[in-house]
């Protein structure tokens, strides 16, 4: 790195930089996508080909791993739907709570707003995995176990810090004259909220929603303790359970097929929503 900068004095600085950048980009792509490519390759190999990759085999490629994963009971697709459902419910609940909270936070006095923000940052810094035991007890007392809808409660709580901080920034960025003008026009609080403020912060809402969704989709320790019914499992827990569910002597083919199937929805999601994700993350970082 230092050398690149040292060489910058010479005339061909930008060309060199371009080359270095291109090299880094390729390295970055290989780094990020290489392991996934290997899983893709593995998922199409026969067991025999996995154990002896260099031997000449009559049958090297197969779809049998995908069949075994898709035909399992319950079918693997089920877990994707469970995760989708838990993700959507959690996102909606998070936003329902976070939008009013962040609106009020953006209107509060500086002192109290700072106090609440510090509280939220404290929660965000908390390694929430340490909460699992108490949350398990809560689930038992309130009979919330094995319910994907109930799972939205802890998820919404865990997403509150991020969601409230992001949305408060968005509300604070709006010029205060705007709301005053709407008030003069005779719009009620709800009307102002619905017709003036919400449309203006919708990009921030989109970023928040997608980040909360990703979190809920991927959450593991709480889903692990709250859900034991195999029909209700979310994807991450189902994946971990597959790890111990095969009697094949080399069970890595089905694992790989499961990782591929489990990755596809997220890859699509990231591709489509790249912009709001990045903007959510970066505004979170810059202003949080």
């Amino acid at each position, binding site marked *: 790195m*230092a050398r690149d900068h*040292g060489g910058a*004095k010479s005339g061909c600085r930008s060309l060199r*930089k371009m080359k270095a*950048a291109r090299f880094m*980009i390729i390295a*970055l*792509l290989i780094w*990020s996508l290489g*392991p*996934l490519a290997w*899983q893709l390759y593995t998922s199409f190999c026969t067991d025999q080909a*996995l*154990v002896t990759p260099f031997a000449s085999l009559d049958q090297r490629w197969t779809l049998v791993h995908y069949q075994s994963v898709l035909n399992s009971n319950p079918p693997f697709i089920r877990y994707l739907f469970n995760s989708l459902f838990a993700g959507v419910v959690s996102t909606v609940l998070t936003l329902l*709570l976070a939008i*009013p909270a962040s*609106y*009020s936070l953006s209107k*509060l006095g500086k002192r109290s707003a700072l106090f*609440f923000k510090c509280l939220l940052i404290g*929660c*965000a*810094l*908390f*390694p929430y*995995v*340490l*909460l*699992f*035991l*108490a*949350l*398990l007890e*809560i689930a038992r007392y309130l009979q919330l176990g094995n319910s994907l809808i109930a799972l939205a409660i*802890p998820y919404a*709580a865990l997403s*509150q810090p991020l969601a409230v901080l992001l949305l408060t920034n968005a509300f604070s960025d709006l010029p205060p004259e705007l709301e005053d003008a709407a008030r003069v026009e005779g719009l009620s609080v709800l009307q102002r909220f619905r017709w003036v403020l919400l449309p203006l912060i919708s990009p921030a809402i989109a970023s928040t929603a997608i980040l909360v969704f*990703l979190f809920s989709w*991927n959450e*593991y*320790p709480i889903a692990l303790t709250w859900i034991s019914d195999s029909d209700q499992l979310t994807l*991450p827990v189902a*994946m*971990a359970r*597959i790890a111990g569910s095969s009697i094949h002597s080399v069970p890595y083919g089905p*694992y*790989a097929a*499961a*990782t591929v199937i*489990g990755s596809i929805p997220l*890859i699509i999601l*990231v*591709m489509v929503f*790249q912009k709001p*994700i*990045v903007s959510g993350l*970066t*505004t979170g*970082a*810059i202003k949080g």
Partner: protein
Amino acid sequence: MPLLILLLPSLILLIAVFALPLFRYGWLSFHADSVMTGLVAIPNQGANWQRFIHDARYWQDLIQTLRFAFVSVTAEIVLGLIIALILNQPLRMRALIRSSSLIPWALPTTVMALGWRWIFNTPYGPIDRLMQSGLGQSLNALGEPSIAWITTVYADIWKTTPFVALILLAGLQTIPSDLYEAAKLEGASSWICLRRITIPLLLPYLGLALMFRLAQAFGVFDLVQVMTGGGPASSTESIALYAYWNALRFLDFGYSATIMIGSFLFLSSLILIAWLVITVARNRAAGVYAK
């Protein structure tokens, strides 16, 4: 006042999910509540804490967890900074690069933890095959305590570096370019620019990334649970995993709660210290810059 009412539901939920458990753990940590008591809580006068202080396994796990957190977070920040500096110039295909570097971060940890188990498998995984044909010796990556923890660090770096790079990239883009031009006019080299302009102005972002990542890495659970199960010889066991096993495998809730509240107190003080150090460093950097 109506403003506070809007805040209330969110606040209640936060208290229920964050504060309530901590109080519950504090209470449980002074009780025996395990399979031997028939899962009933009986006060035990701080015996849990006594055990906690003398529990060599906990302290080993704590050291391992800190080792994991520091090594992986340092590597992520250094690598992330390099990547961010490279990406911080006009590039074609920026969207594609961004999305593909986001993919590792967006995947559930357990999905790739399984993948890593296969990639580091002895003797059939690609890494081990490479080692066998290159060095003629098996690496036994997941079976050797001195290596296994590095594979978990590697898996974490793979997942999180792109994320750190994106945060730092956002920070880089807030630095006005005329600062660099002014420095160049005064004959400063790129290295000086990096040290005097980029890093000081990036410090808040570095500090932020550092704190968030350290806190997250401190609670590492999914990765080691699926990838190594804490082995070999417990060399990859983290405190979260130890607490989990005490609760769900050993059915000792009192002690599990003690571990969690103890770790929480430890982490809080750690973050407080980190916060102070960063604030001091930031103020000093700002002071230098003002001169």
